């Protein structure tokens, strides 16, 4: 009883001890804030890293393939059993992406994923990171008529942008052709034809991207599908989709290129439209039709720039609705580069720079066809990778090991990894960082512990006479000790409680605090362009708060043990004599 009263009274009257506990408060607050931010960071990063990585992945080596995916998938399903949530087959291949920017080809290296739009979204967090809001709800590889709000300057209609783009391309082509004709004529000492000057004047009269042939089909449609299942996909032949051809098709006077010396320039010659390649199907009209849809990582298109006010803006070099070309290696021993025209239908933005600048997605069937992964005899479609999503809570490594046993690498040669394996270097680096931070910060609290020890020693010295009195009145040494232990405990709890309150307050409002600091110092505290996140992520785990609090209180109590023992051992007569 007296222990409680006395430790309570000491708590209320000895402010120097409270001062010593402030270091515990600060230590606890720092630990909570740092841990919250770090685990928020790790959590966000994990979910982003996990984004298009499935839980477990079985992949054939580069340019290899899993030839009988149906059978293989059945076997995988059998092995994984009840832990399986969803499963999808994808084709993953390195590819070259070429887009035209200001008439110059801009080529970037990408990893092209052929995905099944039905099942891929079930296995990975793909659709939440799409930029088009309509696609986020209902995924497809079709160009949308809306939802591209942030990506387009004029409205959010992808098809409108496509029409603008096609018309502008045509206009540029016409312009070039006009100049070409002019130059050729000059070169050949021949007066330019009426038509070409007419074309030139038409260009001059109509600068507004209007095609002079709004109703005419192009003479040489670039894409005619030899297969049947998709309207406008290429047949995999690089010849047909060569950019030169396309440009020629869109040109006003294509024949001029083919027959430069001839004066018979007849851009509207109906016969030129009936070349043998163009045959059975309706002709491809880029104003109304799209090529195979492709979704690009946003960083393949987005660049930073400055506007007139010298503030940072995002510039998109490729926009939805525009066409790009991809070049992929075909499978097999004699890999060849095959090309395909694609229409950009959306961007993927996970804010993970590695992913956003690396990945492009197109329909699985198109990519299979393009790379020659369809068996000409059986029609069996090979894939390169099986992605597996497991039920929540299932141990990924355990399933991976099961799969490794079922498909030994010696025989199959497939890589079987969990997404954590794939990202292990980054994750373990972050975990290591977190551990060391925690260690260092706990040392702060340990330092505070020594502060408490010193303060308590002083208090025991100050209270020597009182200890003598208590002992003279019959208080046992253990009782005297417990006064100081409970004093230490209550100080620790006060300090820790204040620290928790402070830490949580700080952690919950960290972004506002960052703003205030930014405003005060004029320097950016958190630069979203460096990190993966637009604001500082925070994840407060009750268990973390609890263990930090427990640790801090334990340190406060431990620090009071030595002084308390000294108090317990004081000789009453000497203590009473002490002045």
């Amino acid at each position, binding site marked *: *009883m*007296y222990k*409680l*009263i*006395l430790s309570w*009274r*000491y708590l209320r*009257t000895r402010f120097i001890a409270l001062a010593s506990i402030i270091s515990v408060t600060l230590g606890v607050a720092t630990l909570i804030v740092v841990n919250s931010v770090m685990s928020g960071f790790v959590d966000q990063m994990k979910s982003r890293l996990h984004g298009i990585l499935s839980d477990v992945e079985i992949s054939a080596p580069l340019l290899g393939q899993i030839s009988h995916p149906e059978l293989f998938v059945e076997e995988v399903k059998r092995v994984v059993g009840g832990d399986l949530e969803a499963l999808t087959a994808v084709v993953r291949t390195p590819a070259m992406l070429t887009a035209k920017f200001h008439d110059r080809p801009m080529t970037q290296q990408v990893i092209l994923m052929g995905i099944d739009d039905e099942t891929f979204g079930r296995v990975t967090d793909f659709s939440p990171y799409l930029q088009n809001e309509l696609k986020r709800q209902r995924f497809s590889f079709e160009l949308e008529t809306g939802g591209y709000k942030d990506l387009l300057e004029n409205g959010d209609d992808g098809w409108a942008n496509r029409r603008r783009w096609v018309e502008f391309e045509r206009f540029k082509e016409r312009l070039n052709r006009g100049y070409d004709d002019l130059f050729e004529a000059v070169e050949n000492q021949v007066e330019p034809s009426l038509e070409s000057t007419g074309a030139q004047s038409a260009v001059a009269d109509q600068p507004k991207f209007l095609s002079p042939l709004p109703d005419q089909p192009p003479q040489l449609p670039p894409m005619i599908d030899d297969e049947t299942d998709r309207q406008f996909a290429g047949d995999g032949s690089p010849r047909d989709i060569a950019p030169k051809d396309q440009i020629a098709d869109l040109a006003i006077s294509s024949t001029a290129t083919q027959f430069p010396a001839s004066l018979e320039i007849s851009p509207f010659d109906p016969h030129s439209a009936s070349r043998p390649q163009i045959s059975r199907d309706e002709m491809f009209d880029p104003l109304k039709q799209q090529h195979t849809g492709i979704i690009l990582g946003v960083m393949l298109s987005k660049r930073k720039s400055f506007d007139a006010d010298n503030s940072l803006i995002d510039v998109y070099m490729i926009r939805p609705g525009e066409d790009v070309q991809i070049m992929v290696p075909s499978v097999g021993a004699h890999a060849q580069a095959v090309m395909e025209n694609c229409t950009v239908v959306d961007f993927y933005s996970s804010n993970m720079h590695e992913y956003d600048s690396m990945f492009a997605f197109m329909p699985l069937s198109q990519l299979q066809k393009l790379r020659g992964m369809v068996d000409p005899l059986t029609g069996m479609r090979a894939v390169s990778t099986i992605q597996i999503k497991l039920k929540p809570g299932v141990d990924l490594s355990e399933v991976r090991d099961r799969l490794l046993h079922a498909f030994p690498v010696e025989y199959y040669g497939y890589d079987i990894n969990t997404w954590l394996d794939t990202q292990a270097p980054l994750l373990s680096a972050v975990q290591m960082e977190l551990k060391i931070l925690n260690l260092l910060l706990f040392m702060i609290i340990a330092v505070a512990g020594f502060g408490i020890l010193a303060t308590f020693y002083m208090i025991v010295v100050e209270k020597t*006479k*009182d200890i*003598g*009195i*208590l*002992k*003279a*009145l*019959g*208080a*046992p*040494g253990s*009782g005297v000790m417990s006064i100081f232990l409970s004093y230490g405990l209550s100080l620790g709890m006060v300090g820790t409680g204040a620290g928790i309150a402070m830490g949580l307050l700080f952690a919950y409002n960290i972004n506002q605090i960052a703003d205030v600091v930014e405003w005060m110092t004029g320097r950016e505290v958190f630069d979203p362009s460096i990190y993966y996140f637009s604001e500082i992520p925070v994840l407060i785990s009750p268990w973390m708060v609890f263990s930090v609090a427990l640790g801090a209180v334990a340190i406060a109590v431990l620090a009071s043990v030595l002084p308390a023992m000294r108090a317990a051992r004081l*000789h*009453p*007569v000497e203590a*009473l004599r002490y002045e």
Partner: protein
Amino acid sequence: MSKGIPVPRISALNNTSPASSSPVSGVPSAATTGQELPRHKRLAKRQNQKKDAPSKGPLGAQHAISQNARPPLSIARTSIMSVSNLHKSYRKSKLEVPVLRGVDLSIDEGSFTAIIGQSGSGKSTLLHLLATLDAPDQGEIYFRDQRIDNLTARKKDRLRNQQFGMIFQFYHLLPELTTLENVLIPQMIRHNILGYFRNRSAYKQRALELLEMVGLGHRLNHKPNQLSGGEMQRTAIARALIAKPSLLLADEPTGNLDSENGREVMKTLHQLRDTENLTIVMVTHDTQLAETADHIVDLVNGQVAG
């Protein structure tokens, strides 16, 4: 334990006193007592002591107590505490300073004994030994026929808490507590939280009565630094009495008080002796004060002077 002694408090104390349950017998072990003394001599003394303890033995008459002029009040006088051949010395670095060199003493139940002596004569040390605050180097201390100087620390603590009341020259109140709480402290020490809370109103009642008795009924919630010296000492007296002790040990209770307050305190002590049959042992260097006691023990050079 002398059960036949007609002291009203004893039966109540028998149950709780650690001395009553103590296995300490009349025969001391050679290991714990008087190493320097030859065994036969020690035993002889011991037997003497034991035989004479209930009455006023030859030891007391022989050495310790010089009878005061005033006759004892009690009819049947029994010794409540006795010491024999008490030695105590302090070590300062390598130098051993003997303080007590063979003190024999017997204190009667209900008596007022004053221990006087020069500064450094060992009177405070003797009182500390009696109060079991310190352990003698040699010799034995008996409280109600039970040896107490070799008890475990725990039992000594309980003895101090329940049987002895103590008053000091510098009052020794706890500065963080109010008058009332200071008085209640021994009860708080004695009982655990639950036990204290169950009877707290009774304890508080008792404390209030005691404070009323010493004339501090109006100063209950003052801290010691708001009290005068006399008030503090009276608070200390109330604290010493809260556990209804059988022995009050006072170490120069008036030493730090002016004569007016000193007289007040002495009056209170005498009153207690008379009304509550409290045995009082008071250490003082003031011979005038000592004159008012029943017995005077004069310590000279660590021994009781004739």
